[in-house]
């Protein structure tokens, strides 16, 4: 493993901190989902989720900030589940992030490219 200024764990944690909630919003863009489902989808992305439990307080925060709303649905076998969906405010926040992210990613890519060409 090549040397990194910051350990890989820390690096991932830093990058994750800014983006995780927007990934949650993005996952809700297509359809409403419940907690377990969201965790599963995020867990499929390598490095995205180290602490599955923190998704639940995160969802509460997004609810409190008005970015998502939730409703209870009966489930086929077991207790009712809380389903989350994007609010219009959440859609706007996500759109804003996507724009910023693409700009930021482009800028970082350019800087990284620049070093290599030299």
């Amino acid at each position, binding site marked *: 493993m090549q040397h990194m200024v910051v350990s890989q764990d820390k690096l991932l944690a830093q990058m994750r901190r800014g983006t995780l909630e927007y990934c949650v919003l993005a996952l809700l863009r297509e359809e409403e989902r419940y907690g377990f489902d969201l*965790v599963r989808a995020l867990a499929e992305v390598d490095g995205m989720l180290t*602490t599955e*439990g923190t998704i639940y307080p*995160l969802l*509460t925060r997004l609810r409190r900030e008005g970015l998502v709303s939730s409703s209870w649905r009966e489930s086929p076998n077991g207790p009712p589940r809380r389903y989350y969906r994007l609010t219009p405010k959440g859609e706007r926040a996500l759109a804003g992030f996507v724009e910023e992210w693409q700009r930021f990613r482009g800028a970082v890519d350019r800087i990284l490219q620049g070093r290599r060409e030299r």
Partner: protein
Amino acid sequence: MTATRDRLVEEYLRRLDRALRDLPRDRRREIVQEIEEHIDQALSELGSPSEAEVRGLIDRMGDPEDIAAEARASLDLRPRRAGGLEIAALVLLAVGGLIVPFLGWVVGVVLLWVSPAWTWWEKLVGTLFTPGGLSAAFAVGVLGIGLALPAGAGALLFAFLLVAPVASVAFLAWRLRRAEPVAG
């Protein structure tokens, strides 16, 4: 195997509950319940999970302290740590007036209002009960300062001046232990 798995899960949920102890009760219950349901569902999908699988699942849920930290952030909780400032405030509110007459208590009041740890009305209670702290009781009871009251009323006042500052400081100390969502 089910017994072991139940025990492991119970133990984890208990640790989680403890880590969340400074949160409002309904928030705390909600998180523990959501995570318990999550674990239940994950286990049922695994069918008959081995102990290793159960441990792995619990590991993936994460350290209760991390979850608690995220929960506190999600509620925008005011830090309620009893730091030096808070302790000094409480001590001076109670007995500051006895060390440096009146001024000692005033410094306690200043520290009280400067500290971020209490709400506006908590600070008001701490200030109004009782001006001077215990030194007021001292002034009335020992020095007999300027009160022409019948003996019964005087004793009552003295008792009040003794109890009120202690009660209000105890109240402030108690409030420190409970983190609450910031209203403003």
